[in-house]
């Protein structure tokens, strides 16, 4: 069993606090992804779990042991580093077997386990090479192999794909997912790439400035973001936020935009909206598409006439840049045709899929 528990975990460098008390329970065999912008503390948290950074406060439990003051080697974890950290003077086989050699495993056992790991990752032809003679993808695989030969309780991945090109990244992402299905161990994975987070995670932990903003399955954080930060961080292109305030029309709350136009409020929120309140309307680009180029949606549809300022054609879809009441809005156009700048299009907005956030606290009013 290898659940990992973070209890009010803190990290300070001198007087500067960088991790402000994190609570999280990671279940056995769970794939958890920490995601957030640079400097949010996700790598520091991972390094604290690894034992490479001291813990300034709180408690870290791996399995049923409090490991706060244990050196990395006693924690039964293994780690894949962003720059792979392969030992340049050792062959691939030696790199893979190094931790076993240190642990005093017999040479024959080391050979078997290295061969197993090499077979899983397709590294057999390269065992006698040195890291300098391998391509980026191969090095990445060696780094993963080095982690799996040890049969650790927990795997830690620190932005392992960020040095690879886009195509290789997608490929390795699938291999990591397969690896998890195969070995089934607890994995804690750090990335700044929300696509990696969405595709890999059982649960996503979204961090900002040393605190956790939201924890949930990829679908949960996508569909029910706690606040505007999560809403705009998860999803690509990001969610559009339009400033508005709540007004009343015939007793029903409506959203009054900056240019004076009014939108009806999403039905599920009508009871929670108080007149006069400043809010932000959140619309995902796929929920505001040109008429005839939209996905079929249920529920109330609002039609808007908006000018196209710019379009980016991606082949299967296009991203249109437009403006609603002074706020920039991105829209996805499915089955796109060529759209010219300045063209007026009729957009369908799926009102029931929209989010409304508090204008001050920026929290989701539905949450």
């Amino acid at each position, binding site marked *: 069993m290898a659940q990992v528990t973070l209890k009010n975990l803190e990290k300070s460098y001198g007087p500067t606090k960088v991790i402000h008390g994190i609570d999280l329970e990671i279940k056995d065999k769970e794939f958890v992804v920490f995601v957030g912008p640079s400097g949010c503390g996700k790598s520091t948290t991972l390094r604290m779990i690894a034992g490479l950074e001291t813990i300034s406060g709180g408690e870290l439990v791996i399995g049923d042991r409090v490991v706060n003051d244990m050196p990395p080697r006693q924690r039964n974890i293994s780690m894949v580093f962003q720059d792979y950290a392969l*030992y340049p003077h050792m062959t691939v086989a030696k790199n893979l077997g190094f931790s076993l050699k240190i642990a005093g495993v017999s040479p024959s056992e080391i050979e078997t386990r290295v061969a197993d790991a090499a077979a899983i990752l397709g590294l057999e032809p390269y065992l006698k090479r040195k890291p300098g003679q391998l391509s980026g993808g191969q090095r990445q695989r060696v*780094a993963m192999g080095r982690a799996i030969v040890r049969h650790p309780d927990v795997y830690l991945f620190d932005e392992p794909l960020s040095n690879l090109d886009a195509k290789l990244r997608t490929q390795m992402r699938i291999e990591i997912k397969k690896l998890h299905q195969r070995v089934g161990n607890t994995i804690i994975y750090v990335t700044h790439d929300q696509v990696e987070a969405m595709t890999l995670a059982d649960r996503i932990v979204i961090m900002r400035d040393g605190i956790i903003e939201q924890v949930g399955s990829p679908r949960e954080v996508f569909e029910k973001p706690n606040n505007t930060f999560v809403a705009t961080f998860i999803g690509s292109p990001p969610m559009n936020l339009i400033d508005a305030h709540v007004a009343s029309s015939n007793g029903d709350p409506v959203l009054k935009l900056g240019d004076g136009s009014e939108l009806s409020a999403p039905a599920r929120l009508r009871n929670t909206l108080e007149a006069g309140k400043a809010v932000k309307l959140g619309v995902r680009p796929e929920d505001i598409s040109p008429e005839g180029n939209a996905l079929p949606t249920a529920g109330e549809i609002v039609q808007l006439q908006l000018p196209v300022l710019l379009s980016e054609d991606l082949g299967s879809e296009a991203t249109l840049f437009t403006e609603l009441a002074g706020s920039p809005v991105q829209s996805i156009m499915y089955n796109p045709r060529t759209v010219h700048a300045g063209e007026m299009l009729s957009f369908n907005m799926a009102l029931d899929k929209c989010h409304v956030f508090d204008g001050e606290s920026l929290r989701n009013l539905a949450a």
Partner: protein
Amino acid sequence: MITQTPKWPVYVLGSVALVWIIPLVGIIAMSIRPEGEITSGWWTIEPFTFTLDAWREVWVNYPIGRAFLNSLAVASFATVLPVLFAPAAAYAFHYLKFPFRRILLLILVNAFVVPNQVVIIPLFKLWRETGLIDTYWSVVIPFVGLSFAWAVLLVKNFLSNFPRSLIDAAQVDGCGHLRTYFFIVLPNTITAMAAVGILQFMWTWNSLLLPMLFLRENATLPVMLSTISGAYEPNWDQRAVATIITSILPLVIFLFFQKYFSADGKNNSGSKG
């Protein structure tokens, strides 16, 4: 468009390089001509008599072999010790956290600015009282001590480009600091160690002051070289011979290890770049 490399840099560099070779040619010329011929300059062509008299005389009159072995012993000890210990100290100063780390480093670096001449008299008293005068240790110890400052700094500088993640990986793989140092850092620090070794060997091999003061029976080559020029006879030909003998070993070592001066660390741990 591919243009041919211009020829002129070759000529310019060639003639500059020639300037460095001239003294070497001069010394060789002096060593194989009778002294009478070279007093008006080694470059004179007429008359030119080839003779190995100077070589024979130096060999017969001076304990060249003995001095060579003394030099070798002193320079080897004085080189091996810093090469072994400077990286360990550099590792500790760079990666470990211990009390008074900065102050200790400052004290160590301080030795950088202490010239040989300052320590001579205290050392002489010390060696006399401890009976170390005329033993190798009387020069090896100050050589090692004085070299430690720059050797530690040199390796520490090298380590600042050493990827931190390799150390982290070693820790995660189960190494404590000793094993991290021996298995991971040391094998990748060979360039820095070679640089320390070569520089230290050359300096201690050529050093004159300390061996001259502390070694009597066990004189080293440079000390012996200095005794060849008598007060009344310049002995130019014999000095040339001694110079050649003294510089052969450093020359060989330099030729053998010079690639370590240009080679970079190559410790990019497999990341792109």
